[in-house]
């Protein structure tokens, strides 16, 4: 824990990417197995410790501190682990060394649920505040210290001299603490076998298409298809083993047993998971994203849920046909293989994402602008000769999202952000006008946004908010109803969770309308007209 806490602390404070890589490499060099394997699992988000929920840590701390002061402190610090690390009242005279990361993993793994609090208490007592911080970040499974999994794996590649893609793929085949992987990286053993069945293959991702790109890219080299508004998944099936992975490699098959049951073949496919429904004529159409949301983040799913919100996958790509790896083939050939595979296998609950014919960027742009149907987020552009490469290479694939809808709303409440923004008022609730029972216009909140503005604008907004506070409700500031925010969003749906009866999808601040009087902001009528039923 001592080395790990030092690593975490130095990673938090080292701004440069190269500096961070050097720190991780030095850590790998000086730390034995299995400790470093567990730590790398933590840095890459592959460490799954189920028994230490943040709620438990919070509860344990509340039992030892003044709950009001805890709440204020947490609100101020903006990070649970750091708040607890600083507030935890360590008894004097603890004669125990701080635990190692391996101690933590093994301890929690072998503990009964009722034994966990005592275990954690003992560890927290034995640690300094900095060590407590690292420990809590680790056991609550949310390191979030500005290190991406990619960066951590890059450090492994630099340190070992092995290829990053090899490491990336092996990462999903092997389990923490990756002892065979380290053995191979240190030249003490053969490369572990990555052809095992039903493992996650890192996804290929796209860059957003910028205006400059359109000017230089040759339209004839690219293929287009719709970007469906579901969740990107990888279906892997072989020898009866069936798994559905999210784009980050999390297994989500438990939430979609209907879909998982349909994987009665040997292949690895890339597609979009969607909830479908029947339209008036009885044909299948994509249901609003809200319907899909009902099914996300569940470990298991009730039969009624699966029936009301049936899951389907719209296929984009074929990565493995049986044991044959197709990722080295150009996209055009993979597409032919996919179509052939689909015709041959005729899988249940799947269809092909259709290709869109176009002759110029202009005509394609027009198609994109006209697409207003549910389930279409925009377009995907893929070079006909592109191999399936893990990660987000620049050039072969682009996403060209539909222009967002916008509304002019009035800022109503502001709250401080978390993490890097913990001193800035960066979360804004905004509203639209609606007549109350007496016909007088009042603002009703329609959404909350915390992105879309520049750092400079954030400073201006923060200053404006501090000067326009009307009332405080704990951490929430009510501001005077003066500032108009042009809000962009992908869709607006009905929702009974909000007073206004609507919920926006991915709202963000497009512009700050310093110039516009609040009275000229949009009304609920405007909002209602944008709802896709």
């Amino acid at each position, binding site marked *: 824990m001592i080395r790990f806490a030092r690593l975490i602390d130095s990673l*938090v*404070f*080292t*701004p440069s990417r190269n500096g961070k890589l050097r720190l991780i490499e030095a850590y790998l060099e000086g730390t034995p197995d299995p400790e470093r394997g567990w730590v790398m699992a933590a840095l890459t988000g592959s460490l799954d410790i189920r028994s230490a929920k943040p709620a438990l840590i919070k509860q344990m701390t509340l039992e030892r*501190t*003044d709950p*009001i*002061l805890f709440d*204020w*402190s947490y609100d*101020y*610090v*903006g*990070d649970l682990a*750091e*708040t607890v690390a*600083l*507030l935890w009242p360590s008894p004097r005279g603890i004669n125990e060394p701080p635990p190692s990361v391996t101690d933590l993993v093994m301890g929690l793994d072998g503990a009964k649920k009722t034994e966990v609090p005592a275990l954690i208490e003992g560890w927290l007592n034995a640690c300094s*505040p900095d060590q407590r*911080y690292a420990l809590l970040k680790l056991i609550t499974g949310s390191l979030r210290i500005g290190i991406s999994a990619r960066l951590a794996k890059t450090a492994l590649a630099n340190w070992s001299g092995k290829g990053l893609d090899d490491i990336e793929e092996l990462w999903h085949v092997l389990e923490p603490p990756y002892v065979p992987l380290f053995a191979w990286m240190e030249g003490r053993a053969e490369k572990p076998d990555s052809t095992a069945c039903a493992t996650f293959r890192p996804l290929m991702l796209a860059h957003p298409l910028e205006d400059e790109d359109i000017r230089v890219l040759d339209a004839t080299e690219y293929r287009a298809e719709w970007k469906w508004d579901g969740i990107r998944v990888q279906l892997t099936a072989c020898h009866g083993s069936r798994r559905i992975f999210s784009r980050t490699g999390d297994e989500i098959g438990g939430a979609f047993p209907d879909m998982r049951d349909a994987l009665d073949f040997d292949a690895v496919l890339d597609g979009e998971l969607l909830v479908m429904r029947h339209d008036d004529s009885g044909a299948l159409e994509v249901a609003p994203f809200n319907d899909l949301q009902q099914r996300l983040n569940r470990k298991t799913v009730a039969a009624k849920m699966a029936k009301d919100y049936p899951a389907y996958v719209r296929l984009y790509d074929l990565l493995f046909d049986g044991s044959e790896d197709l990722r080295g083939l150009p996209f055009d050939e993979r597409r032919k293989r996919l179509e052939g595979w689909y015709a041959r296998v005729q899988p249940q609950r799947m269809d092909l994402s259709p290709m869109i014919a176009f002759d110029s960027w202009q005509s394609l742009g027009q198609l994109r602008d006209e697409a207003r149907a549910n389930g279409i987020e925009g377009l995907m552009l893929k070079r006909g000769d592109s191999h399936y490469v893990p990660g987000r290479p620049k050039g072969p694939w682009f996403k060209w999202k539909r222009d967002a809808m916008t509304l002019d709303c009035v800022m109503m409440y502001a709250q401080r952000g978390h*993490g*890097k923004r*913990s*001193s*800035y008022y960066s979360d804004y609730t905004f509203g639209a006008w609606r007549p109350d029972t007496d016909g007088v216009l009042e603002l009703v909140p329609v959404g909350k946004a915390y992105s879309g503005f520049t750092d400079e604008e*954030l*400073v201006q907004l*923060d*200053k404006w908010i*501090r000067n326009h506070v009307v009332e405080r409700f704990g951490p929430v500031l009510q501001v005077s109803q003066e500032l108009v925010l042009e809000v962009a969003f992908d869709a607006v749906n009905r929702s009974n969770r909000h007073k206004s009866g609507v919920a926006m999808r991915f709202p963000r601040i497009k512009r700050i309308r310093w110039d516009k009087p609040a009275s000229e902001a949009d009304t609920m009528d405007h909002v209602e007209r944008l709802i896709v039923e």
Partner: protein
Amino acid sequence: MKKAENWVQVTPKGLYIEPGDFYVDPVRPVDKAVITHGHADHARPNNQAVLASPETLAIMKARYGANAGAVLEPISYGVTQRIGDVAVTYFPAGHVLGSSQILMEHGGCRIVASGDYKRRFDPTCRSFEPVPCDVFITEATFGLPVFYHPPTDDEIAKLLASLKTFPERAHLVGAYSLGKAQRVMKLLRLAGWENPIYLHGAMVSLVRLYEELGVALGPWRRVSEVKDKKELAGQVVMCPPSALDDRWSRRLPDPVTAMASGWMRIRQRARQRGAELPLIISDHADWPELLQTIDDVAAPEVWITHGREEALKHAAIAKGYKARALALVGFEEDEGANGVLLNEAV
């Protein structure tokens, strides 16, 4: 006994002491200002009569020149004098050189306005003295239990260790020019650092003033006098916090940016400041010191001026004191988005 709230008022100009017709640390120009210490949010220019410790007056003159005040009246510690119907006595507050608590007695009631204070060792100023009173007016800059400042020696040791680890890099320490800078310099001397300390031009005049007032700080040079900036590798360079990420710092050889402030306790705050080496060194009382001080002066009533006053009020009430948050304006209550407060002493 005349109740404190009957002769002390919170006004837009600041804390007004009616029977003496004066203000404590007024935020706008007034006829008679009684000043606790020289920081710019407490000692402002253009008052008529200004009463303060001799050191505070010297600081105000250095900063404001002729605008320091029309009539400057030095007040020594422990000497009582009458202002109108109020007996006023100054006591050391341990915050920066010349910083004072002000005891005000009227109608049998004793009120102490403590300004800003700390209880730690500070070799550049006199230590805080608890003064028994009926009402204790306290700050609450670090008024949350997460603010525990670790031993200052450990933080100085962190800086010295980093100088050893990275002898090829300049160590740029952001510290407020009044108080913190001189304290860090002096602490470095006490820890055995004998090399010249290099100063940003904005720090020079107050460092000189401290020396004139009898605080020896060892050898120092202006950064601008160093022709070859490579000489600064492995050296301590001090600058105001605002210069840390300014173009000025680009001339230094691959600087390690250190920031000396109580806010460095919170990781995200340190990151926002771009501090690679956060040094938790504060001239304000941390949470345990605030609570200890409330017990030490044992005033039945505690008034809280600026900072996280609600939390301290809550804790004081839990300890059995009467507590009240004064809604005083003009003091930095929080680190603003552009780090305004970090330019003041924290």
